Every structure is written in C-alpha cells, then in structure tokens.
C-alpha cells in the first residue's frame, strides 16, 4: 500500500470516527437535559459501542483475529483518547477496563437507561475524541504525501 492510499484511508477513517463522535456527543448533551434522542443518535451510539468492543478485541493476543466491522478506523486515536481521559479522571481505571465500562455506558445511553455519571463519562470521552480527530484531520489536510506523522502514527484496523 502506498502513501497516497494510506493518506486517503487515514482521512476516511478519521472522518468516520469524528462524525460518529460528534453524534454521540450530541446524544449525551440531549440525554443530560432530558431531550429525546433522534435516529441518528441511536445509530451513532450503536456504532460507538461496536467500535469500542472491536478495539478491546484487537488488544488481545490472538494472532489471527477475524475481520472487524469498522475496517480502517484509526485505532491509535481511540487509544490516545483513552489515555487522555484516564489520565485526567479520578480514580484511574486501566484502559481495557475503561473501554469495557464505556461500551456499557454507551449502550445504556442508547437504551435510555444511562444515569448522569454514565452520561457524563460518554460525553467527556467522545467530546475529546471528536476534538482529537478534528485536529488529526486538519493535519492530514495540510500534509504532503509521505511526510504526514499523524498518518504514520495512527495505524488502522485494515490489517488487524
């Protein structure tokens, strides 16, 4: 795979992740004030829960993982967000535990059963994820082929 393909796939993956994060953030904002979710919120919450579960799966040590749903999503961006959020929250949970808990929170939100702390955890994580992906996308948009650190550092699911 050459740099140009890698750049387009990285940009496509970041675009997917960012838009999903935006919509999940909106869902958390709406839940916080008791507003109803719309169908786009529900779809995004479902995608987010699956994405978090996929990230957990590829952290395992099986050499032949099956093809994942969200091929080409930049996994390192999710991991980096976990690090940012866990390092600023108390008490600190291990990343794997946090992803598991977050996937559960997201599903509760989708089902209309999330309490306020769960809603805030989802909002905090996905708001940060949204900011990080937007910064990454901006960097990709300004880069030339072959010199983009963000692309090189954000591996994708495509070969996982």
């Amino acid at each position: 795979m050459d740099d140009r393909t890698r750049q387009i796939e990285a940009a496509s993956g970041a675009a997917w992740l960012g838009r999903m994060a935006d919509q999940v953030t909106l869902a958390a904002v709406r839940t916080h004030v008791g507003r109803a979710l719309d169908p786009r919120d529900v779809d995004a919450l479902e995608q987010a829960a699956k994405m978090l579960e996929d990230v957990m799966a590829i952290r395992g040590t099986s050499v032949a993982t099956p093809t994942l749903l969200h091929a080409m999503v930049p996994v390192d961006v999710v991991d980096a967000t976990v690090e940012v959020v866990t390092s600023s929250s108390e008490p600190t949970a291990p990343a794997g535990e946090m992803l598991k808990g977050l996937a559960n929170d997201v599903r509760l939100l989708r089902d209309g059963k999330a309490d306020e702390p769960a809603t805030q955890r989802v909002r905090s994580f996905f708001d940060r994820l949204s900011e990080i992906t937007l910064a990454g996308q901006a960097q990709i948009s300004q880069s030339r082929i072959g010199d983009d650190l963000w692309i090189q550092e954000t591996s994708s699911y495509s070969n996982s």
Partner: protein
Amino acid sequence: MDPRNIELLEQLIADHLDRLASQLPPAGDGPGKEAVRLIGRLIERFQLERSTIMDDLNQAEPDEIPVHARKLERLFVDLKTFQPHLTRFASDASKQSGRLGLHVVVESLVKNLLPNGADPVIHLEERHLYATMDLARSLRLLWNQLPSAADGDALWEWDSGPPIVFFVPDLDPDNSMYLPLLAHEVGHQAIFQADLCNKVMKACADELQPLFEAALANDSDLQSRVLRQQLRAWVDEMICDALATTLCGPGFLFASVAFLPVSSVGSAESTHPFPHERVRLTLELLRQLSWESVLNEETPQIISWLDSVCGRRTAGSARETFLLEALDVVAPHIRTVVLDHLEGRSLDPLEFGAIYGELRKLLDKGVPPAQVDGKSVSHWHIVAAAWLLRIGVGGDSPRAVAQGPLDDLTNGRVLKAIELSRILQLWEEEDSVDARA
C-alpha cells in the same frame, strides 16, 4: 461559535463543492466511468451533509450549537483533504484512451486476478512506483458516515467492477519489462476481493500462535496489535509476490530484483519483508512451478548470485525472529491459497520452452513477437523472453538485470507485441465461437 463564523464556513464549503462539481467530467460509458460516478455521488453526499448540518444548526438548542459547528468545520477540513485526490482521479478517468498495451495488460490482470472485476483508471504518478487503489474501498468509511439521498446509492454496486486506480511511474509509463510489478499490485486488490489473507491466516493460526506469544513474552515493548498488523502486511506482500510469480513467471523475478532492488537492506520495522527474503521465496516458487531448467540454462550466473545473497540472515530482535519464523510457516499456505485462487492460470514453463527460441529470434530482429506457429503468445511469455534476452545479451550479470528495463527498443517491441497478441487472441476467440456454431 459566532454565527458570522458559521456563515463564512458555510460559504467556503459551498464554493469548494461547486468547484469540485464543475471539474467532474461527464459520465461516459468507457473505462473510468465508475470512478466518475463514485466521485459525483460523493459530492452529492457532501452537499447533502452541508444542508443537513445547516438545518440542524437552525433548529438547535444553544447547548447543541458547538457540536453542530464542529461538524461544519469537519466537513470543511474533509473537503480540503479529499478534493485534490478526487479532482486528480476524475481527470484521469476522463483520459483513458491511448496506451493500448498498458490497458491490455491491466485488462488481463483484472480478468485473471479479481473475481469482482474492476473499472481501471490509469494514473501517471510523479513518484517512481507502481501501486493500485480501490477508490471505493479507500473512501468507504467516509461514505458510510455521510448522509445518503432518499433514493439510496449503494457503494458496492458496479456495472463493470469497482473503480481501481493503477499508478504507473510518469517517468517511464511504457516500461514493459516492469509490467509484472503491476501483477503484484493488482494482487492487493485480489486479497481484498477474495479474502486471501484471512484464508492464509486461518490455515496456519495454530502454528503461528506460539511464535506470536513467544515474541510478545521476549520483548515487553512489542504491542500485540502492531505486531499482528505488521505480520498481516508481510503476508499480504508475500501473497502478492506469489500471485505475480505464478502468473508472470521469471519476468516477475527479474523485475523484483531490479526494482526492489534485491541489494536493499530492508528493515524489520517495515510493512514489507526484507527484499532478499522476498526474492528467495519468489525463486523457490519458480522452482516449484518447474521453471528451474529455464533459469539455469539461460541465466545461471544470476541464479547463482541470487541463491548466494538471498539466504536467511540472523535475526536481531524478538520482532525480527518472529517475522522470519512466521514467513517459514506461512509460505507453503500462501502457495496453496494462491494456486487455488488462480485455478490453473499459471504461466506454463513447458509452453515457454517450446517457443522461447522463436520469441528470442523475433525480438533480436526487431519484430514484436506476437505470434509463434500461428498462435498468439501470452503477454507474460513475451515479457519473460525479453528479460532473458536482455540478461543474456548483457552477459548474465547483475548489471544486465539493472539495464534490462532501460532498453527502450525492447520495451517498445514488447508493448507492441502485447497489443498485437491481444488482437490475435480476439480473432482466435471469434474463430473458436464460429467453429462451435
């Protein structure tokens, strides 16, 4: 965000989209039409997203506005990212006439390697590389997250296969000696279309697992995801090499030796296996496919040199140990999967042996060798013959391998022979249909 900033951003996005749409060539019916159609639909989706975000902003509660504004900014950034690529490929798609020989080879590779076919777009690349890109696959995630029109616009339905961009070096687009490298690159699309890497990994997962666990235990800095991803990348490259070797025969060996080149050191951190490992495995497969006598008779010194420099080297890290041991495990499985995928469409060394003398004679005389004994000649037999001839003329030396692809006269004759042999094949196919009728 200040409403005036939103107004600015919205107008910039509208202008970007208008410019992009204005540069899209009309959707024709020839090669490249699927790329034009895909890019056109993508522009429509961007336009729809812009209007959706603006509708949402107009109706949003104050606490939702920052998120919608961020969506607008994201759309603007995405347009800046994708616009140059989309413009370039749309322009390429509108100029697919000419370079008949190259188109013939691309058509043949698509037919032999890709079960879902392809609508090829040839792109002359400023960098000196060969590559392919499935445009739809590369844009899939973006596409899936953009709003769709009410009539639906499925990404995976094509009249003539998905739009695949073929990158060939602008510096030397008519180099026929390097055409086997395109077979390797089409292999990457075959891996996706026929799930070849997963087939290989599934077949040898039990053998690989203890090696994988040992590597992770021996180096605590290794991340399982990164190592697994690198292994998959190496397996992908080896599958592509095996597909190209089986389909193109010795032409792929010599093209690899010169283009990689085999003398490169490589890196255990790379997405590609070490060049000497790749060449050794290519040579092993050629021998398995019964090309040994041709190689030993025509290029004994080159083969001896390659055998000498392509041996296994001592691994310097847990990562490298794992990857090299994994190569040994996956190699036979790759050959099984590749032969199964090609279903007998491998280049025949016996047939080559029978016509090589005549091919060589014609090339020597400056005649494009499209036909021997009244039958059209396979493209890859022509390319293999050209390589053997050039290496022989150059004294069976590494220098001859380097200079082979630079011979413009031979390149021109080979490309012309490929064009002519394709015409002959079409006549033969018509005669065959007439005879059956």
